[in-house]
């Protein structure tokens, strides 16, 4: 399954990381317009 996330900050990275942790078979792509993704959890 292909999971695409638009926006790589608090909400987007929380979802992407947890989804991938819980199901390693997921294909997760995060589209972030800026040059930084931040992950604070």
């Amino acid at each position: 399954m292909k999971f695409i996330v638009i926006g790589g900050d608090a909400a987007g990275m929380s979802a992407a990381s947890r989804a991938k942790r819980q199901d390693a078979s997921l294909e997760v792509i995060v589209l972030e317009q800026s040059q930084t993704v931040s992950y604070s959890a």
Partner: protein
Amino acid sequence: MVVRTAEAFRKKSGIDVRTGHRAESIDPGTATVSGRNEAGRPFTLPYDRLLIATGADPIMPRRPGFDLPGVAVVKTLDHARHIKTMLQERPIRKAVIMGMGYIAMEMAEALRMREVEVTMVKPRAQLLPWMAPELAETVGQELQAHQVQVRTGFDVARIEKSGQGLSVVAAGNETLAADLVIVAVGIQPNSQLAAAAGLELGPAKAIAVDRRLRTSNPAIYAAGDCADAYHVVTGQKVWIPLALRANRAGWAVADDLTGKPVSLQGVAGTAVFKVFDLQVARTGLSVAEAAQAGFQPATTVISASSRAHSHPGASPIQVQMVADKNSGRLLGAQMVGREGVAHRINAPAVALHAGLTVEQFSQTDLAYAPPFGPTWDPMLVAANQLLKLV
């Protein structure tokens, strides 16, 4: 905050992070998202599930002069770096801050620390309309004590160049000179992509989501500052953009996606911020919000001590508490003080999630020792007073 490079993140987590990639449209019909990378190259990607987590951006008033150099918003690290560079490159003696929210307050403090003269302006007459005048007065005094000028009733009509600096002109033509103007008048959800894709919007044009973070299209989630949420007190949709609920919503999306049961309770609007040496906190509804939601608000304002009577170093904690006259239900609390405020707000916040009445809250067993508060916690003093009114 931890900022990691996309490459490190990809290696470590197995997540394909594509920075410099801006999504420009979503086609729910073909289940694709399209956009452009930093080189201007277009891309189109198919999805099985999509999450919109585009956040919110500062509102820039569409009035003359807001595009002049020296006029800045504060949202990203890049904005902060930009302001820092301006402070280093040219003499900045005077700043005007538009807005009186927590970001405006934080900027006032940061600029005062660099000895910049600061004037805060807002169009409406009241300083912090969501709290009792007694509490707002304390905040006003704290700003004054740190030489921050506060100009209420100052509605900025335009900004003009004036010599080396800027002129901030109000509707009545009154003028403030500034080398730097910080625009912190509010933010709006980045929901344009969702709206263009035909997704339903909620309050403040945030993307409407259910308790599983699903939008009106079952293959598309939305989470964080771009999306709405349920309020635990009113049960109604609200838009209160804050970090915890953005992180939590992200987790909930992951859970729903991977087949775990999800149903988020919602938000109480619990928030805290610092104004120089003051802590300002709130949870739940203000009096005006309670009335608007159809409650019969009763309210009380008390001042208690941050430490036991005998303990040196005590300072006042002011509490406003709001309840519904008809049901006796606790609806909200606002608090101001020099210590013991930030985490004390969490007790009424939990009470709101549990739907406690003031009477039930007044019976809760809260901690006491002389360095941390009076025997009757300020929360309980307020609840006991409020109990007489419901």
